[in-house]
C-alpha cells in the first residue's frame, strides 16, 4: 500500500524536476533549492499500513499465528524485551531496534521472510527507519476513539459567502487548501429534481416544479425540504438502504430458497419508522431487542423481525443446529456491520488480523444472540400474528359496503354479494404470521462456546456473552440483546453515530465521507474529511432545540441545506484534475439512480405509478422461466395483475436466488447477507433493460398516451411536455427538435398500410388496447412510444445531478 506520505514525496520530486527544467529554460535568476525537510510521520496514515500488510500476520493480534512472541500492533509489546534479549523497537534508537536490522537483512534473518511472498519497498524501509528515529509513535485507530466536537473552521472572507451550514466550512477549508474554487449553485429546476429524488425516490410533478420556481420567498428551498421530509414517500426511499443492510427478502435462501411471504410487515415497519422519524437509537433498540423492552408494543415486537431475515435451510437432512448456528452468527456479524461498521466475519475462525476482535470475543458476541427460541424450522416459528393497517382498512371498507347493500333493495343477487363481501372481509383480517425474536425461558437457556473454525460441531471453551474489549470502555457486562442495543446506542460508543451519519451522507452524495461504508476498522479507508464526520456525529447525538437526539430528519435537513448539496454538478477540467473522484466535493456528484428508483421514476413519469404504501410484496412482469432456476421449491412466478403491476421497486417480491433481473442488472444485491454499498456499474445489459424490458416498454406506451392527453396537440408540444416530465425543467430547443424529428420520421413510417400492425403492437403491447377516447392514431402513438422510450433512456433521466 502506497501511503499518502510517499505520494507527496513523489509529488515533491516531480516538482523539483519541473522547477529545475524551468530554470534551464528561462535561465532567469537562480532560485535556491529548497532545503529538504524531514516529514513528520503520521502513524495511522504512513506507518501502520506498512506494518499491517507485511508484519501483522505473524506479529499481530492472532495469538495462534504469532511468531517469536512478538507483536508489533501494540506499542508496549513492540517496545518490550523479547525472549531473545533484544527489542524490536527502541524509540529513537535505530541500532537498538531489531526490527530495523531485520528489514535491512538480505539473508536468513530477512523480514518479512522471502517465503511469505511479502516484500518491503526501499521507500517503505525508509519510512520504518524514520518512524523509529522519530520515537516510534503509535496512535489508536481513529474510529475506535469516540468523536469530540471539533471547532468550525474559520475561513477567509472571500469564502464565507459560500457557507450556509457549518458543513460548508469544513469542506471549503479542504477545497481552499487544494486551490479549488467553490462551484456555483445549481439552478432551481435542478435542485427540486435532485432533492425530490433524494428524499422520496420519485421525481417532482410538473405542478410541484412550477410552484417551487414561482416561490420567490427567501425560504422557498427550506419549505421544499420540509414538504419532502413530511411526504410518506420519504420513508420508502430511506428504508431501502436499511433493507439492504437488514438483508430483508421474501424468501428463506439456501438451495431450495422457499418463499417467505410473511416478512413484509417488517419492511413496512422500517418505512413507517423513517416516516414518523423514530429516533435512530430507538430504531436500533426496537429491532435488536424490542421484545425485551418492558411492556413492548406490537410495533416493537414487529421490529425484531430484523434478525429473522436470516436464512433458513429447509432442505431435508440438514442439521437444524448447524443452520441455527449460522443464523445467530449472521445476527452478530450483521449487527456489528450495520451499526458499527466493523467486520466480524473473519474472527469466527481466528482472531481478526487487523481489527481488535479475538476469536473468543466473536463467540461472546454470538452468545448474546444465542438465547432465542427459533431454530431453523421450516415454519419459521416463533411467529407473531399481525393484522396490518391496510388489512384493517380493507376490512372496514368491506363492512361499509355491506351496510350500504343491506340498506338498499334486496334480491338473491344482493344477498349473494353480501355473503361474498362478508367472506372477503373475514379473510382480510387473517393475520400474517410474522417471524419474530423470542427469548428462551429461564430454565431452557443455552450454553455458548467458541466454535473451532466456525464449525458448530467443534465446541471449544465455554463463553459468556459480551462485547469486544477494545470497544467496551467502562461498560459493564453485556448479557442480553437489550444490553447490547443500549450499549450500541450509548453516546460513549465511538462508531454508531459516525457509521449512520456516513450512510446518510452517502445517501445524499453517493459516497460516504468514509468511502468503505461497511468497514470503519483498520482496513477501511480514512475519512475524506474526519472533522466534518465527527462534527456531524456529535450534532446527530445531541438533542435538537426542544427535540430529541438521534433525529434523522433533522440531520438530513441540515445536510441538504448546505451549499455543498446545492452546488452545481457541472464538471470542470480543473476540478476533474485536482479532485478526480470528487472526494472533496468540488462539485455535486452526478450519479445513476438506484435500481428501485429507476423503476419508480419511470412509473411516475409515465403516470402508471400505484403510489400505495406497504402491504404484501408484488410480482411485476419478468421474463418467463427465471424461477425455474431455483432447483427446488416454487418454480412458477405468479405475475401480478392490475394496480399491483405498477408498485414501487421496493415492493417487488425479492427471491434471494433469483432477484428481480431488471434490478439486479442495476446492481441491486441478492439480500442474502448484509450489504452496505451497491457499486454502480455502467453496462450494455442495463441499456437492454431500459430499452427493451416489457415493463419499460409498457411505461413508454403509457407515457405516450399521457402526452396525448396532457401535452397539447402538436408533436412539439407533446415532446416538450414529455421532456419536462422526465427532466423537471423546460427542455432546450435542441432536445425538442431531436425528438420531434424522430417522432415525425417514425410517425410517417408507421402510417403506411404495411406497418399498421406493427404500429398497433408498439402502441399497445403489453399495455393494452388503445382507449377509444384517445385522440391519436396508432401510428402517432407508436412514434410517441419510441420518443418516450428514448426519453426514459436519457443520461440526464437515469442520473440524479
Amino acid at each position: 500500500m502506497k501511503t499518502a506520505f510517499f505520494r507527496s514525496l513523489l509529488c515533491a520530486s516531480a516538482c523539483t524536476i519541473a522547477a529545475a527544467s524551468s530554470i534551464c529554460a528561462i535561465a532567469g535568476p537562480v532560485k535556491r533549492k529548497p532545503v529538504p525537510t524531514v516529514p513528520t510521520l503520521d502513524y495511522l496514515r504512513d506507518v501502520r499500513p506498512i506494518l499491517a500488510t507485511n508484519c501483522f500476520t505473524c506479529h499481530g493480534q492472532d495469538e495462534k499465528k504469532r511468531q517469536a512472541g512478538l507483536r508489533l500492533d501494540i506499542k508496549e509489546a513492540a517496545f518490550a524485551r523479547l525472549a531473545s534479549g533484544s527489542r524490536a523497537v527502541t524509540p529513537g534508537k535505530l541500532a537498538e531496534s531489531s526490527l530495523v536490522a531485520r528489514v535491512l537483512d538480505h539473508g536468513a534473518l530477512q523480514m518479512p521472510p522471502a517465503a511469505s511472498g511479502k516484500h518491503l519497498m526501499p521507500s517503505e524501509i525508509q519510512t520504518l527507519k524514520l518512524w523509529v528515529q522519530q520515537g516510534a509513535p503509535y496512535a489508536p485507530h481513529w474510529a475506535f476513539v469516540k468523536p469530540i466536537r471539533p471547532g468550525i473552521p474559520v475561513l477567509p472572507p472571500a469564502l464565507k459567502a459560500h457557507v450556509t451550514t457549518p458543513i460548508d466550512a469544513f469542506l471549503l477549508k479542504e477545497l481552499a487548501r487544494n486551490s479549488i474554487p467553490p462551484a456555483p449553485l445549481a439552478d432551481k429546476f435542478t435542485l427540486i429534481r435532485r432533492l425530490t429524488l433524494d428524499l422520496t425516490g420519485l421525481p417532482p410533478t410538473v405542478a410541484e416544479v412550477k410552484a417551487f420556481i414561482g416561490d420567490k420567498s427567501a425560504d422557498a428551498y427550506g419549505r421544499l425540504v420540509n414538504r419532502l421530509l413530511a411526504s410518506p414517500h420519504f420513508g420508502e426511499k430511506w428504508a431501502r438502504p436499511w433493507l439492504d443492510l437488514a438483508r430483508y427478502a421474501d424468501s428463506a435462501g439456501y438451495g431450495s430458497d422457499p418463499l417467505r411471504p410473511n416478512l413484509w410487515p417488517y419492511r413496512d415497519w422500517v418505512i413507517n419508522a423513517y416516516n414518523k422519524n423514530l429516533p435512530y437509537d430507538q430504531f436500533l433498540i426496537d429491532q435488536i431487542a424490542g421484545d425485551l423492552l418492558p411492556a413492548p408494543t406490537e410495533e416493537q415486537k414487529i421490529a425484531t423481525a430484523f434478525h429473522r431475515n436470516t436464512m433458513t435451510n429447509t432442505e431435508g437432512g440438514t442439521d437444524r443446529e448447524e443452520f441455527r448456528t449460522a443464523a445467530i452468527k449472521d445476527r452478530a456479524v450483521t449487527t456489528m456491520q450495520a451499526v458499527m461498521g466493523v467486520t466480524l466475519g473473519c474472527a469466527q475462525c481466528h482472531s481478526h488480523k487487523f481489527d481488535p476482535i479475538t476469536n473468543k470475543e466473536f463467540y461472546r458476541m454470538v452468545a448474546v444472540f444465542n438465547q432465542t427460541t427459533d431454530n431453523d424450522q421450516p415454519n419459521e416459528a416463533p411467529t407473531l400474528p399481525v393484522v396490518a393497517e391496510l388489512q384493517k382498512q380493507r376490512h372496514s371498507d368491506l363492512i361499509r359496503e355491506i351496510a350500504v347493500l343491506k340498506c338498499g333493495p334486496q334480491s338473491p343477487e344482493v344477498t349473494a354479494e353480501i355473503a361474498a363481501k362478508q367472506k372477503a372481509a373475514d379473510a382480510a383480517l387473517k393475520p400474517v404470521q410474522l417471524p419474530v425474536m423470542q427469548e428462551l425461558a429461564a430454565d431452557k437457556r443455552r450454553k455458548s462456546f467458541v466454535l473451532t473454525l466456525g464449525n458448530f460441531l467443534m465446541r471449544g471453551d465455554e463463553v459468556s456473552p459480551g462485547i469486544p474489549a477494545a470497544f467496551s470502555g467502562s461498560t459493564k457486562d453485556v448479557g442480553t440483546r437489550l444490553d447490547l442495543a443500549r450499549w450500541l446506542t450509548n453516546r460513549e460508543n465511538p462508531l454508531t453515530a459516525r457509521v449512520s451519519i456516513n450512510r446518510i451522507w452517502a445517501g445524499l452524495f453517493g459516497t460516504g465521507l468514509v468511502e468503505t461504508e461497511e468497514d470503519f476498522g483498520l482496513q477501511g479507508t480514512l475519512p475524506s474529511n474526519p472533522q466534518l464526520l465527527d462534527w456531524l456525529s456529535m450534532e446527530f447525538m445531541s438533542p435538537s432545540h426542544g427535540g430529541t437526539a438521534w433525529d434523522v430528519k433533522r440531520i438530513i435537513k441540515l445536510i441538504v441545506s448546505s451549499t455543498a448539496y446545492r452546488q452545481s454538478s457541472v464538471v470542470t477540467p480543473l476540478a476533474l484534475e485536482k479532485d478526480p473522484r470528487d472526494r472533496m466535493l468540488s462539485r455535486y456528484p452526478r450519479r445513476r439512480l438506484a435500481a428501485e428508483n429507476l423503476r419508480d421514476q419511470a412509473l411516475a413519469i409515465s403516470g402508471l405509478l400505484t403510489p400505495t404504501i406497504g402491504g404484501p410484496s408484488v410480482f411485476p412482469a419478468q421474463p418467463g422461466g427465471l424461477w425455474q432456476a431455483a432447483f427446488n421449491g416454487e418454480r412458477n412466478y405468479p405475475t401480478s395483475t392490475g394496480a399491483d403491476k405498477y408498485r414501487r421497486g421496493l415492493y417487488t417480491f425479492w427471491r434471494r436466488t433469483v432477484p428481480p433481473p431488471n434490478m439486479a442488472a442495476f446492481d441491486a444485491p441478492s439480500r442474502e447477507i448484509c450489504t452496505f454499498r451497491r457499486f454502480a456499474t455502467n453496462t450494455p445489459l442495463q441499456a437492454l433493460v431500459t430499452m427493451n424490458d416489457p415493463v419499460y416498454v409498457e411505461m413508454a406506451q403509457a407515457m405516450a398516451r399521457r402526452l396525448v392527453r396532457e401535452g397539447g396537440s402538436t408533436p412539439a408540444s407533446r415532446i416538450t411536455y414529455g421532456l419536462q416530465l422526465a427532466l423537471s425543467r423546460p427542455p432546450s430547443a435542441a432536445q425538442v427538435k431531436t425528438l420531434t424529428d424522430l417522432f415525425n420520421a417514425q410517425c410517417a413510417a408507421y402510417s403506411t398500410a404495411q406497418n399498421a400492425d406493427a404500429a398497433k403492437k408498439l402502441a399497445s403491447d403489453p399495455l393494452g388496447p388503445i382507449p377509444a377516447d384517445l385522440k391519436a392514431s396508432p401510428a402517432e402513438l407508436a412514434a410517441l412510444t419510441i420518443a418516450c422510450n428514448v426519453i426514459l433512456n436519457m443520461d440526464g433521466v437515469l442520473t440524479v445531478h
Partner: protein
Amino acid sequence: MAFEIEKIHSMTRRTFFGNTGLGIGAMALNALMSGSDAGAQPLDQNGHKGPMAPRPPMHKATAKSVIYLHMSGAPPTLDMFDYKPELVKLNMQPCPDSLMKGERFAFIKGVPRMLGTPYKFAQHGQSGAYISEMLPHTAGIVDDISIVRSMSTDQFNHAPAELFMFTGNALAGNGAAMGSWLTYGLGSVNQNLPGFVVLISGGTDPTGGKSLWSSSFLPSVYQGVQCRSTGDPILYLTDPAGMSRQTRRESLNALDKLNELEAKEYGDPETRTRIEQYELAYRMQMAVPDVMDISRENQQTLDMYGARPGAGSFANNCLLARRLVEQGVRYVQLYDWGWDIHGTGPGDDLMNAFPSKCKQMDQPAAALVKDLKQRGLLDSTLVVWGGEFGRTPMNEARGGSKFLGRDHHPHCYSVWMAGGGIKPGQVYGETDEFGYRIVKDKMTIRDLQATILDRMGIDAYRLSYKYQGLNYRLIGPTSEATLHKDLFV
C-alpha cells in the same frame, strides 16, 4: 511494471473518463499525460481502441481463448479419473485412523466407511490413462487431453470454493472473475459480442452465484455476460414488438444526440461511457442471436454433441462455446450444476444421480474437444474441465443414508485440460492409494489460475489492478502460484 500493462491501465483509466477523446475528462487526462490536449484519439465506429479492443499479450501466447467447463457441486473424480484399486479392496471397511486424524468434514460424522468406486476402470489410448466406464466418450479423447490428478484447494464449501477458483477470493464480491481479468488484460477480438460469456446448465445457477462472473473492482465492461439457450439469449435482448431494427437504430441516433448534448453541458465522463454501452447493446442485439442459434449447425454436428436446438443443456452450451470462440470471444465459462454427490437420496447419489450427470456431460465435453480439433481451433483454445474441490474416499452416509455418496474433500481431485499449449495425452500428478492426499506434483488453485493466464500470454504476477490502495491480482497477494511446465507443450 511492464509497458503493456501500463498501456492497459491507461486505457481503462481513459475508459473511466470516457475514451472518445472528446470529453473534458479525456482532454484533461491527455493533457496530464502528454502535456497538451492534442493527440486524443476518438473511438472509431467499430469500437477499436476501446477497453475491449484486442491487446497484445505480455509474452507469446499458446492460447487465444479459454473454454472452462465447470462442474458445479464438485464431481467425484475417484469415480471418473483417479483409479484406486486399494480403495475398492477396502470397500465398506471402517476408515483407518490415519485418515481421520485432525480432519473435519462437512457432513460425515463418527467413523465413516471407505467407499471403493462401484464403477469399472480401463486404460485407454496411447497414454494408457485409466478412465471410468461412466465416461466412454472422454475415454475416446484421452490422447488429446492432459489429466491432472493432483489438484487441491483451500476451501471445502461450494460457494467459497467456486469463488476462490474463479475470482481468486473466497468471499463474494471481493475478487474479479478470471474472465474479467483476461478481457481486461487482452481485450476481445469481436467487439459485437461480449468478451466474457457465461453459459449455465443443470437447472440452476452455480452455488457461488452471479458473483462468479462479476468484474468486482475492475471496470464493469469486463463483467461476464450470461447467455441463455432458451428465450432471449441475453435478457431483454429483443426489441419491443412492432419495432424494427431500423427504428431502433434511428431511436438510438436520437438518444446519442441527446446524450452528447448532456455530455457537453455537464462534462461528466460517465455520460460518454453510457453512450458506448448503448452502442454495444445495439451491436449485441444483432450478433448474439446469430451466434446463439445452434440450429444453423448441421445434423451431424448436433448429433456429435447431443445438442438439441431450444434446450438449456450442457450439450447445447458446449456447442455454443465452440461457436463463441470461433467468433473471437475471449473467455467462455460453462457452469453445469448437479455434481454434489453426497448420497443423501437418489437425487444426489453415486448410483443414480451420478451416472445421469455423466451421461449429460461426457459426450458433449468430448465432442467439444474433437470438434475444436477438427476445425483447427484446439491449438488456440484452452479447454479446462473440473469441479471446485474433491470428494472423500469415504461413504458419507449422512443421517444413516443408505445411498452411496461422498462428502466434500479439499485435499485432492482431478481436472483435465486440453489444447492451447497443454501437452496432450498425459496424466500428471498422483494421489495416495486411497485418493485421500496428494503424493506427487500438487497443483493448487493459484497454480491453475497462473497456468491459464500463462497460456494466454499473461504473467499472473504482473496482471494487477490498483484499487483502494491495494494491488489486486487474480492469484492474490502471495507468491505461491507456480507454473507446472511439465504440462506445457
